[in-house]
């Protein structure tokens, strides 16, 4: 068969042109690859390595040619950062110029690059191999450029789910602010499941507050209390009027009868003494000083009615079943004196006489008030029997950090479109993002808003493998029964103390093994008359006015149940040589810097002159050996004591105050 070359000249020319074009492209690609930024970087590194290391080290060092990457299939990431950051895990390059310097700190010891890569902490484009494309700085069309150091804690929080992660103080503070402000009342927030925010129940608020106070509070809570946890809902005067009427008609439970109380003879001096003795300031601040568990009392006289306050002090749990406030054992005259003292001492100058309760009849007003209450989600924080639960009124914040920043509203402001900036502005000024917002203005400082932003920016659409998650331990609520259980509820032990991590953290002493720590007789006496174990601590255990029988019940129960056998099995037959050696060690280690003994020594730790009567030896030895095991963050340093030295110190400390213990056992201990 005859083959004819039918291609005309034009086709020849086309092929020739294409051939040359392809050749050019091919050589350009070759040249471009050969001159790639990372190759010059690696050449600079080899030069630097020659300067930094001696020949022996150089011979041992791995060669650094070619692309280097960490592939993390379970995180769905490929990080090629180490192509240029060649000295990142080699201590020889500490202080070397960028990009070769060793990673600062000890982070890579706990987060080796082989398991964590780089971008899970730093963000940026892990697969890129040149500076710009890796998004070291914000780039157009890159959703997550590298985080600056200032905000990197947001990424810690993606894996570290504890409320108080160590070494991430801004994140921890942000989470604390969220927990304290009760954001989860209106929003579903992963990591805060199971938390409830306790605003006061409003079922009987009509008996509780003065009308003028309520109106100004609804207008702006900060006008009464700068630290108010309630935000400003930006209500109109009409809304305030109707909501005030609706709330003041809530009168479910009449206050306890105080008609027989002789108010004319109220002794405010005695009230003042009681205020100090009951240690009210451990939980309530006055003029900005004191605890934060309860509301500040500086202007309480402007807010509440006398009969309600008397009734509430006498039995707080009747009105507010879930209040952390305890019920003291006082008589009516004492309650009267305390009430009169609070109202007289803590009210602003222009507080008028208490107006009689008003009955609101206008059905339209009440309906309008109820509508405001429902619309603004008041029941997210405040219980009110007349309103059925509305559920969470705000959008869920699950995966908020993975929202597309270009789809979020910024209200015409010229900020860079990032989820950080959106969350920040929303938290700081919720009504300025160009959409009507039902979210109240909480009045956070910009720095606090930034910390809350960090905490929220750690919430990703998580398909994170469980092996990466450092979780928050699930807490099991502790509810003992019987007579002991009643006392725990009445005196609200768990408002300040924890059992199994459950409870409040005002006290420094968890109760889990308290029976193996404290001598039973000491505890029984302490409950009746709590003194200061650490003189420098301001928040102290209140004087409950327990009956001796109640103190005995608590001491007996605790010393039979809250035990740790490891301490109780300790051999307590100390020799006098051990005690002498312990006394020497006491001086050599400098214990006196923090502990007072007699009149000498510091007041950081507990006073020690009655240690033998107070603490059990097994506990002393365990505590001295590894204090951080029992109380992370304690100021008691771990001296790395040998077993013999710990025993010697224990022998010495146990010998202190023993005769007092014997005296105390002489009959009068409950």
């Amino acid at each position: 068969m005859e083959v004819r070359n039918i291609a005309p000249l034009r086709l020849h020319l086309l092929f020739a042109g294409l051939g040359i074009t392809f050749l050019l492209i091919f050589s350009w690609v070759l040249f471009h690859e050969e001159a790639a930024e990372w190759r010059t970087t690696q050449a600079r590194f080899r030069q630097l390595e020659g300067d930094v290391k001696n020949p022996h080290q150089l011979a041992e060092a791995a060669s650094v040619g070619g692309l280097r990457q960490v592939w993390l299939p379970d995180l769905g990431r490929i990080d090629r950062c180490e192509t240029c950051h060649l000295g990142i895990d080699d201590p020889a390059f500490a202080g070397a110029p960028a990009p070769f310097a060793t990673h600062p700190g000890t982070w890579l010891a706990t987060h080796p690059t082989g398991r964590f890569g780089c971008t899970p902490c730093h963000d940026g484009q892990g697969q890129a191999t040149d500076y710009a494309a890796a998004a070291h700085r914000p780039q157009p069309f890159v959703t997550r450029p590298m985080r600056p150091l200032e905000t990197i804690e947001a990424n810690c929080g993606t894996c570290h789910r504890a409320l108080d992660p160590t070494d991430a103080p801004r994140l921890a503070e942000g989470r604390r602010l969220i927990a304290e402000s009760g954001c989860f009342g209106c929003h579903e927030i992963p990591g805060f499941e199971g938390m409830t925010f306790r605003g006061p129940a409003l079922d009987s608020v009509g008996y509780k507050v003065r009308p003028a106070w309520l109106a100004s509070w609804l207008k702006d809570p900060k006008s009464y209390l700068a630290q108010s946890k309630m935000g400003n809902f930006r209500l109109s005067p009409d809304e305030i009027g109707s909501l005030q009427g609706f709330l003041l008609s809530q009168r479910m439970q009449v206050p306890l009868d105080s008609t027989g109380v002789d108010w004319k003879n109220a002794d405010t001096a005695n009230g003042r003494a009681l205020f100090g003795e009951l240690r009210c300031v451990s939980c309530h601040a006055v003029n900005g000083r004191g605890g934060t568990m309860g509301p500040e009392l500086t202007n309480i006289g402007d807010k509440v009615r006398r009969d309600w306050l008397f009734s509430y002090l006498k039995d707080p749990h009747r009105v507010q079943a879930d209040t952390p406030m305890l019920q003291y054992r006082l008589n009516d005259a004492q309650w009267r004196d305390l009430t009169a003292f609070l109202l007289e001492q803590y009210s602003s100058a222009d507080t008028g006489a208490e107006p009689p309760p008003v009955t609101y009849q206008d059905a339209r007003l009440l309906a309008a008030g109820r509508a405001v209450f429902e619309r603004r989600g008041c029941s997210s924080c405040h219980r009110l029997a007349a309103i059925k639960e509305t559920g969470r009124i705000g959008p869920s914040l699950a995966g908020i950090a993975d929202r597309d920043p270009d789809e979020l509203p910024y209200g015409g402001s010229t900020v860079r479109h990032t989820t950080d900036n959106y969350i920040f502005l929303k938290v700081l000024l919720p009504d300025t993002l160009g959409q009507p917002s039902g979210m109240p203005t909480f009045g956070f400082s910009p720095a606090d808003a930034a910390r809350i932003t960090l905490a929220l920016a750690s919430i990703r659409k998580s398909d994170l493998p469980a092996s990466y998650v450092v979780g928050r331990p699930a807490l099991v609520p502790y509810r003992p029964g019987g007579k002991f259980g009643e006392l725990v509820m009445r005196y609200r032990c768990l408002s300040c103390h924890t059992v199994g991590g459950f409870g409040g953290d005002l006290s420094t002493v968890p109760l889990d093994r308290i029976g193996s720590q404290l001598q039973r007789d000491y505890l029984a006496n302490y409950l009746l008359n709590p003194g200061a174990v650490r003189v420098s601590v301001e928040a102290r255990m209140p004087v409950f006015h327990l009956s001796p029988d109640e103190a005995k019940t608590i001491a007996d129960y605790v010393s039979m149940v809250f035990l740790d056998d490891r301490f109780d099995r300790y051999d307590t037959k100390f020799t006098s040589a051990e005690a002498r050696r312990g006394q020497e060690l006491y001086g050599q280690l400098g214990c006196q810097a923090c502990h007072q003994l007699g009149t000498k020594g510091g007041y950081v730790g507990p006073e020690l002159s009655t240690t033998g009567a107070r603490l059990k030896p097994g506990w002393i030895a365990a505590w001295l050996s590894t204090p951080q095991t029992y109380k992370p963050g304690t100021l008691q340093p771990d001296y790395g004591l040998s077993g013999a030295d710990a025993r010697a110190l224990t022998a010495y400390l146990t010998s202190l105050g023993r005769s007092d213990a014997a005296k105390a056992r002489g009959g009068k201990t409950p």
Partner: protein
Amino acid sequence: MTGRAWHASAVTVLALMTSAACRSGPRPQPGDPMLDAIRAEEREGKLTYVESQGRRLFVHYCATCHGDDARGDGQNASNLNPPPPDMTVSRMSQDPALTRRVIAEGSAAVGRSPLSPPWGRSLSQQQIDYLVAYCQSLGRETP
């Protein structure tokens, strides 16, 4: 439209787009209010991120004796003999290796009184690094 005319108009549009892109010049940088808030706070405290981490630890672990601002005036300072030094003027806090040793092994390890205890077993290496960084920032601060 003929092929030639189509080509011409496409080239014109491309040329216009290119010249528009060149003309627009540097646009104003969009702000980062969240980052600004954090940086403003850091400027106010005159500490870098790492130093502020150290300061937080210092206030928790050290300030009862050394004082909130490391001037040796903590509430427990009057009970100590010798008293804690004013670290804002002490040369020792400017020597990172010595500072690290005192923090980790206690003041007795450098031949001084045993009143400043060893923290090496209680704090992590990272936390001690932070503390050293904070101590070094002390000389820098204006009184």
